[in-house]
Every structure is written in C-alpha cells, then in structure tokens.
C-alpha cells in the first residue's frame, strides 16, 4: 500500500488486518501515537487522516491507502513547536504525557475546523480523549489560549 505519513510517502506491505496504529508504531517506528486500549475507548492513538481525527486503533492500515496521515511526530517543525504544543507545556497540560499526543491531535483538528471555539466546544472536541492526570482543565486552558492568540 501507499500512504503519506507526516508528509513523507511510504510504500509498505501490510497484512489486511493490521491496524493503522500498529502500522505506525511497529512498521514505521512512530511510537508517539500511543496504544491505551486498542478498542477506541481512550483516544490516546488519535491521528489525523486527511485532516480528520480518528482512533488509529479502529482504522485498518489499508484504509489509509492513498491518504495522508498526520501523527504527533509531524506536528512540530525542526526548530519550533506547534503553538498548541507550546501552550501545552506552558499551561501545565502535560503530566504523565501518555494522553498528550492524542490530545494535541484532537486539538489541532478542532482549531482547523473551529478557530475560535468556546470552552464547551473544546470540551466536546476532547470528549473522546481520556486523561487521568490533569482533570482536563489545564488542557482546555492551553487550547483556549491558542485560539485566543494568547498562547
């Protein structure tokens, strides 16, 4: 199959039942995308498929044929964090960090779609991403700050 991941085209042989998550983590070594449940319950594996947030554990690798995948590794440039990543650092939105990649991806998708979300819209966008450390407040604060341009 052919797939573009973080702007780089790849040609891979993958088994038809392999999940996009396992392809990213095991075949491409992109371990920034986390496996928290492998059942679509936790959101830790959120990536963008043609710009749309998906749980990579629920998508077959072959479903990404000819499409563009963005993972956490493709978010920052060489020398600069994405504004959302910077805000996550500054606002204390990161504790154990295991949900963080998925949270950042969901937040990117939200701001692409809705550049000026209300706090409720931010909460809605994060509803599929579990976090057990932060109580979510500082994550919401970080996203809101970026949206308002104060991040």
């Amino acid at each position, binding site marked *: 199959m052919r797939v573009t991941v973080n702007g780089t085209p790849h040609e891979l042989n993958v088994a038809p039942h392999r999940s996009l998550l396992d392809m990213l*983590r095991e075949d491409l*070594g*992109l*371990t*920034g*995308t*986390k*496996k*928290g*449940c*492998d*059942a679509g*319950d*936790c959101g*830790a594996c959120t990536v963008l498929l043609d710009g749309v947030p998906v749980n990579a554990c629920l998508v077959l690798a072959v479903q990404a044929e000819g499409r563009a995948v963005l*993972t*956490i*590794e493709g*978010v*920052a440039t060489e020398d600069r*964090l994405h504004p959302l*990543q910077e805000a*996550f*650092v*500054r*606002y*204390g939105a*990161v*504790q*154990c*960090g*295991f*949900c*963080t*990649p998925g949270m*950042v991806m969901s937040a990117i998708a939200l701001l692409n779609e809705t550049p000026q979300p209300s706090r409720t819209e*931010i*909460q*809605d966008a*994060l*509803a*599929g*991403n*579990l*976090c*057990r*450390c*932060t*109580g*979510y*407040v*500082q*994550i*919401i604060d970080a996203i809101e700050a970026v949206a308002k341009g104060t991040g």
Partner: protein
Amino acid sequence: MMRHIGRSVERADAWGKVTGQTKYAGDLQLPRQHHGRILFSAHPRARLVAIDTAPALAIPGVRKVITAGDLPGSNRYGYNSVLHRPVLVPPGEETRFVGDAIALVVAESEAIARRAAKAIFVNYDPLPAVSSPRQAMLPDAPRIHAAAEGNCCCRREFAHGDVAAGFRGAEVIVEQTYFTPRQEHAFLETEAGVAFVDDTGVLQILSCLQDPYGVAEDIHQALGIPKSRIRVKVTPVGGGFGGKLDTTLQVHLAAMAWLSGVPVRLVLDREDSLFFHAKRHPMEIRLRLGARRDGTIQAMEGEVIADAGPYSGRTFEVVGLTISALTGPYRINNVGVVGLGIYTNNLDSGAFRGFGAPQAAIARELLIEKLARALDVEPVELRRRNFLQPGDRPVSAMLGDSPNSLAELDARLQELLGPKPPASGPSKRVGRAISFDMPVFDVGAIPVLGKSGVGATVEIHSDGSVSTHAGGVELGQGVATVLAQITAEDLAIDVNQVRVELSDTWTCPRAGRTSASRLTYVLGNAVLLATGALRATLIARAAERLQARPDQLVLRDGAVQLAEEPDRAIAFAEIARTCSDRGDNLREEGWYRYPEDRYIYGHTFMAAAADVEVDLGTGDIRLLKLVNLLDMGKVINPTLAAGQQYGATVQGLGLGLMESMTTKDGRLQTPTLAEYLIPTALDLPEALILGSIETPYPTGPYGAKGIGEAALNCTTPTLLNAVADAVGAEICQVPLLQEHVLAAIMRHEDD
C-alpha cells in the same frame, strides 16, 4: 527573594512528551526483542490440575513457554515480606483470583505470543469463589490462605478515651453503614516493561513502576536472582496513582528474560490490566457518632471491613490509615474503631491516591451531615464547632506537627464559594455542602528497604553545570522539575543548569517508594542536605582563593562572590576544576531522616465545597461549582501544584459520581474502559475553582508539604452532601448515580 521557588518553571520532560519523542516502556525496541504474554487463570478459584504446554510449543515462532516448575527460586513474592503470592500457580494448588498467572509465553511477535497462550491446555477443577468479605468471614468459608483464619488479612484498632462514657453523655446519636466502591486507577499507560540479561549477566528491567526497590526485592525473592545482578530502571510512567506501587508484571517479565535468553517486551492489554493490578479497597464502614444538643461531638465508634482481595500486602497499611483518618480534623476525644482486612477471591486491593483515607472521609463527612440534620443545625456550623483547635493534637494514630489552618481555610473557602445561586427552574433545587479534612503525607516515617533515610546526590561538574540524582519516580507529578528548582535555588544557579536523573537502582541513592505524597518533602530535604554540603565546600575554597572570610561570601549566578564587592568572584566551574587536584569532591550525598519521632506524619489541611443543582423529576445532577482548597505549606511550582489539585479533585469526582469496578463471583463486570467509566472533559463542573494557602511547614523544604493526594479526599463526600442538601434527604450511595438520586427523591416524597 527566591528565584526559582514559587515559580512555574516548565517541566523538564515536557518537550519530549508534547512531541511524542518520550519513550515509554512499550515504545522500546531492542535488537532480537521478543514478546511476552501472560496466561491468566480462567477462574477466580479453582484447583489447578494439569497444564499441557505442548500445543503452544508447536507453534512456529514460540521461543519459550514457562510454568511454575521452570522457575528458579521460591516462586513467591509479596509486599511487606508477606511472601504468599505465586509468580505462577503450580499444579495441585488453588488459584485465588482471575489475575493469577498460570504460564508465560515468549515468542517472536505479539500475535504469536497471544496465539500460543491460547493454545496452552489447562485443566482446572473450578471451585466456588469467595466473593465478599462477609462471605469470607463465615465459619464454613473456604480458606484462601491456609494460615489466615477466618480469611483475616489484618485487624487494626484505634482506641482513645472512654467511648461508652462518651455515648452516655451524648444526647443525639446517629449511625449509618456506607459501602465505598472498588476504584480502578485507569492510568492511560497499561503495565509494560522490557527486560534483558546484559553481557555481564545482569538482569536489566526497564519498566513503568512506583517502587523500583520493592520490584528488585520481589524479583530476588521469587526467582532467587542475586540482588547484585538485578538492575531496575524506571521508564517514563504513563500514570500511576498507586496502581503501579506494588510489583505488577515485573517478576513475570524478569522470569521471561532470565529463562529465554532474549530481550523481552511485555505490555498488558487493557482488559488484562483492568483485572491484574490492585485497586482501591472496597469498604463497608459502619460509623456511629454521639453529640450533645449544642453539637459538640462526644464519641465515635465504628467498624471498617475492607475487601483485601487475594493477596494485598498493602491492606495492613491501608486499613490502618482508614481507621486513623476517621476522626478527620475534628476534636473527638472518645474513639473506638476497628478495621478488618479480609481476603476474598475478588480483584486484588492495594494503593490508590489517598490510601484508605478517602473512604474514611466519605463515611465521616456523610455521617456528620446526618448528625447536622438530626440536630437541625447548619452542617458547616456543626463542623466549625468541632474543629481541632490550634495546639490540639489530632485524636488519631497518625500524629502530626503541621500548623492547624482550619480557620483560615474556612474563611478563604467562603470567599471562593460566593453566594449560593438560585435554581434554574421550578423542579430544580440547588444544594451546597462544605467539608474539611487533614490527609497525611509521609515525612520520612516510611522505612526505606535496607537503609534509614532518603537520599539524593548533587554534583557540580567542571563546567559549573549540575546533576541531581534521586531514587524517586517521575509519574507525571513533576518531581524532576521540583528537585531541579530546589537544587537551583539553594546553589543560586539557573534552573536550566540542572539536570535531574531519577529512579535507577544502580545510580541513584535509595528513596523508597513513590507514594504517600512524600517526594517533594523527603527528596527536597535530601537535596538541600547535599546542596548545603556543597555550599560549605564552595565557600571554603572561595574564601582561600579570594582571601576573604566565609561570612563575607555569597553564592550568586553560579559563582561565589564577596557580598560587598561582587566583582571579586570565583565561578563554581573554576572551583570544580581545581577540586579534584586537592582531593575535594563537589559531589555530595544528602540523607534525610526525620529528626525526632519516626511516626510523625505531615497533614495537609484542606477544605472543599460544592454547589449542585438537582432535577427533582429526573434525578439529574448539574455540577455548578466545585471548590478545592489546600494548605500547601509552600507552593514550589504553582502550575504543577495546580495540576495535582485538579487531577485529584476530578478523580474524587469520579469516585463520587461515576466509578465502581464491580465483580460477580470474582469475575470483573467492567472489563473495558467503555464499561468502567472515568470522567471525561464533558464531566467537569461548570466552575472548578482551586485555592491554596501557605502556612509554612517548619521541616518542609522552603516550608512545602506533600499535596499529591490531598485534594481527592473530601471531594467525594462534598458532592454527595451537596446532592443531599438539594433533595433534602440522606444520601449514602457511592458512587451516586442518577437512579440513586431519583430513588432518594422518591423515598423523601413517600416520607
């Protein structure tokens, strides 16, 4: 003026975590790495008749299948030297819960390992499970451990004053029994690790865990591997909350690597994780309070029965803390409480943020609310009337020396809370509740294996940069950043000059376990002892070089200078470069030991308040406002401290309104995160307000206290009491679901 303390220094590990570069155990990939799989018992209680591994071994790609007979060593481990948990259940013995391991598989891929584990044929003789403490205590109940009569894991008692006389003097007596649920940690990263035997014959374990020394001890006990050949290095931990405090999969992983001769990665599936690690103890708490008409509480009496699960080495401590925490921040001079830990074939119980104290807070604060209704007084007034007063020693087995700040917390809470809002409709009622507590944190009373005290090493390198090594674990709470701040503050250097290495049993001084909200306090103090020694050396050398008296010198910006003549200075780097020539060392170990009584604890005085709106027609609860207020002693890093406070508060909210990990006949009924629900971003209160006050704790680093667990404590009963206030009826169900609220409303209407 402090440069680093009290400032929200960005966490040292944040860059790696936001970019996905941080390598957790499950992300590691070693050459020749194989994959492990644990075959768990199919039954909570069964006699294991026989195991046939041949079908698994026949699968191509399977390297090794291990059963009990293959293990070197005793095959037994367990916390607190209660060595009764088998690594693998041997044929002829009984399984004790669904998390007992039967066999281990090492294979070339995860898929092959999974298939091989399924192919192992196990012949069980199923036996009825002991599925509740009450059942376990019956005279004819089967014994889960031969030595445990009545399936009693432990009995703890606390008595003070004259309980009978106290109740005789009481004019109003209230009593209730509360059942608190089993709570699951639901850390986002399941148990994981990589292990290999290195070229010198040392078994290296890289894994997410909270007590590297306990893990090394368990591996040694169970597998007989010499301690000098066990190295435990903690990988970044994707959440712990107590659930990774007991050894989880590390002994199994060690056996896989030791016996297979290849590097092995073992990562638990979520469904295995959910039944495998120890949970918050479910408890039945019967509590009785007697008071005079004026509200003065005269006596407390009660009994706690905790479901210890099958092994639970922590139950002794957890139940001890529960009975100690029952009196809370109130002056109750006549107390008699008994706590029992009872073995069952349910899921194992162990440490979870708060460690038994949240259950106590639920029972106490709900019963005080009931007492207030019986006395017809404002609940907060009743609490104030019974506050411990400054100078009072708490009536508890957990003695402490923290300054009592209840009055200040009470006043600050009122400011944060504001007026009670009106209901939004005719069928809606708004309720409000306020609670207080004084959860403990460890100040050095918890023994550290093979050592007294808690250590940290600080070294100034020849370029003036600084390394701090300590045995604590970074769980996400930010301890590495806090220790960097303390190091930088005391040495008067830029915080970016400091790197902190944590939790490698070979390179870091012993720190014991990462639990009990203890690291900022114990490691902070250990760092200050090390930096204090370094300061003395720096000043002594600088005094010689600058021909000044030590008392004329100060540390500033990585140099020692004359206070009055800043131009006369010598950089740390220069001192460091010459130190080795003269046999000096700019590497110091600090060992912190609590100076007086080993059994003193710190107390984090706290308060919580909630405004809720209940729909009397549907029982739906709207969380209008939740306030959490802690006396932090001194806030080292406001952003990190707030993170602990938010996180613990929302876990307390989950415990109060959502979470219950139920079992039936020993089997888990909530086997996925779609069935065991934890709070999402949509479950937050409309306003979640944090506050902190700072009453310096005299022996704390810069006055700081432990705050990691505290905020959870009275969040849960505060929410429940606010609902009770709204509906005008007693609430004693935890977690409180909409159907329970509706039932309470209907009961109230019937009355």
